[in-house]
């Protein structure tokens, strides 16, 4: 079995408007590694993350997404979660009426397909809260309801830590965070790091990569990965901007 998340020649459009967003994305994240996807606004980075998680507002027109060698294209979002995928949303949805903790326990049980004891659940929660330097008051509040932008991002990371996915996609989790919040989020991701965890870090800025050192960096433009490299690529982008990559894209190298 191949232990990797593989995006193979992925083409996709917006279901309603037909606007083409992804134009042949190729990407492999081996289990145990963290890869960053960087790129200017409108490159299709967030769309890529949502399509991997099964967002029904997009339509895949060609290509495939494989988790450990198995295609997940036909699966519903919840089935993908049970295959080990997780998407930390850029804009988590506010849901009054269900507490953060109750929701998370339901999600954990749904993912594992079995009852999770209160003790085991609280054990997981406590570990996550401790890493994220957070107190329990966040648990009894309604899911994301009235959370600040920073709280929402931190909560996504907490969900990830409790649900323990095999492959996580973090969609601009760093945007809108001050430096302290950024460090906390990075701490959460780094705590997950290990041979059984792979992640795709979607970001616009190099900043978060100071705290989460990626195994590889991919640059995305106009619906394609145009170049890939090591962590040093992120620094180059920071210094030189995206213009020089754009030229790479045009020359097709």
């Amino acid at each position, binding site marked *: 079995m191949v232990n990797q998340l593989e995006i193979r020649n992925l083409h996709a459009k917006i279901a309603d408007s037909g606007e083409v967003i992804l134009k042949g994305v190729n990407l492999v994240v081996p289990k145990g590694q963290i890869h960053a996807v960087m790129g200017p606004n409108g490159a299709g980075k967030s769309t890529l993350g949502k399509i991997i998680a099964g967002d029904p507002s997009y339509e895949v027109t060609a290509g495939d997404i494989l988790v450990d060698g198995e295609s997940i294209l036909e699966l519903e979002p*919840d089935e993908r979660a049970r295959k080990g995928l997780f998407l930390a949303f850029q804009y988590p949805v506010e849901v009054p009426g269900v507490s953060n903790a109750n929701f998370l326990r*339901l999600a954990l049980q*749904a993912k594992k397909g079995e009852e999770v004891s209160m003790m085991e659940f609280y054990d997981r929660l406590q570990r996550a809260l401790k890493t994220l330097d957070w107190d329990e008051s966040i648990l009894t509040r309604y899911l994301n309801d009235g959370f600040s932008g920073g709280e929402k991002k931190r909560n996504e990371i907490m969900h990830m830590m409790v649900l323990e996915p095999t492959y996580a996609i973090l969609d601009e989790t760093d945007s809108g965070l001050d430096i302290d919040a950024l460090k906390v989020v990075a701490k959460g991701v780094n705590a997950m790091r290990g041979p059984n965890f792979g992640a795709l870090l979607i970001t616009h800025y190099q900043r978060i990569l100071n705290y989460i050192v990626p195994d590889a960096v991919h640059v995305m433009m106009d619906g394609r990965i145009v170049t890939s490299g090591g962590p040093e690529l992120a620094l180059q982008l920071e210094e030189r901007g995206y213009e020089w990559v754009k030229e790479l894209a045009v020359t097709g190298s």
Partner: protein
Amino acid sequence: MERTAALSRDQVIEVSAKLGEPRWLLQKRLAAWETFAKLPYPTPRTEEWKYTDITEVPFEELPLELPTGKPKAIPQAVRDRLAQAQLAGYAVFVGAELVHLELPEELRQQGVILTSLHQALAQYPDLLEAHLFKAVNWADWVGPQQNRPENAKIPALNAAFFTHGVFLYVPKNVAFSKPLGVFKYLEGGQLSGSRTLIVAEAHSQAVYIEEYLSPSQVPPSVNTSATEIVLADGAKVRHAHIQLLGRGFYHFHRQRALLQRDATLNDLVVNMGSSLSRAEVQSEMLGPGSFSEMLGLYFTSGTEHVDHYTLQHHVADHAHSDVLYKGAAKDQSRTVYAGLIKVAQGAQKTDAYQTNRNLLLSAEARADSVPQLEIGANDVRCSHGSSTAPVAPEELFYLMSRGLPRHMAQQILVKGHMTDVLTRIPIEPLRQYIESIIEEKVRI
């Protein structure tokens, strides 16, 4: 032998005699019969019935449900509720029969009365004659001022043919906060009718829950209910009408509360059963300082149809009313809400609010919402709002992406939609019960 002949005047006399009623009540029934017999049924051409077609309802093709005199056990569905509901006292009706009644001695000694209407007619005739038909009377819909008298048809049917009911009386200054519960279990296949009369004397306080249950699937059945709530000065009543009748039922509920000075009504209507149901809920703010909170929850599935009408009638000045009705509809089901805030001339400093919000879980489900204001005073604060929206796909996607199957994600969104009503139900076991019904309903 069951009789399926059309309803008749003779039948009215027979019912009244069988129930051993006093003459004045027979006269009332006969007057109601006269009205019933001469009026047509409302149709979608009747303004109040624009979205609800009852032409297929077999009002006059079913046997009338009468007391059988045979002892009956408490049905399992009611036992389950009794085990969960944490009630102070309760009454259980099976069909037209009162099969069990329990009222704590402590309340009894303070003069609280909870009994069947017909028991009360024998024991407290004066109280009954003074109050019955005062709040809910078919005659309100007829007369020279009324241009749509067909609205009286079903209330008149109920008045002429009701066979059982409940009487709750709370004396002056007596207060209790643990609920009394009344369960009406209907076996189906018949025309059933009941009335409830609640009289809360000055500065009394009472909590009353009425629940309608039946087998989950029944042959065509019609149920009419009328609830009258009389609140004297400073009285506080918390009232709930919970309708969970099975598929096959047509349920028609009419309720009217009369609020005197500084009286408070906290009302809740939950309609989550029946093939078709309609509830008309009305509060009359007759005294200054009175307050009527009117909450509603409904959730339809399959081809169910539910229709709500609320009226906040501000007669006195300085009164306050607040309507919040929230519903959800899935499959091909349909919901209707119409509400009117009516402020009489001179009812200054009225504070009246009305909100209706609907959530659609499928493309075929439909919700109609018609909020209305009719204001005859110039120094008032009134607002109304309504909205109908489908479940947001991005919300569903978010919840499902965490591993929740679609039905669970929908369940969370429905509960989330209804949460501001649910959190205003302070009776914890009742709220949990309603939440469990919502969960069940999303799943099926």
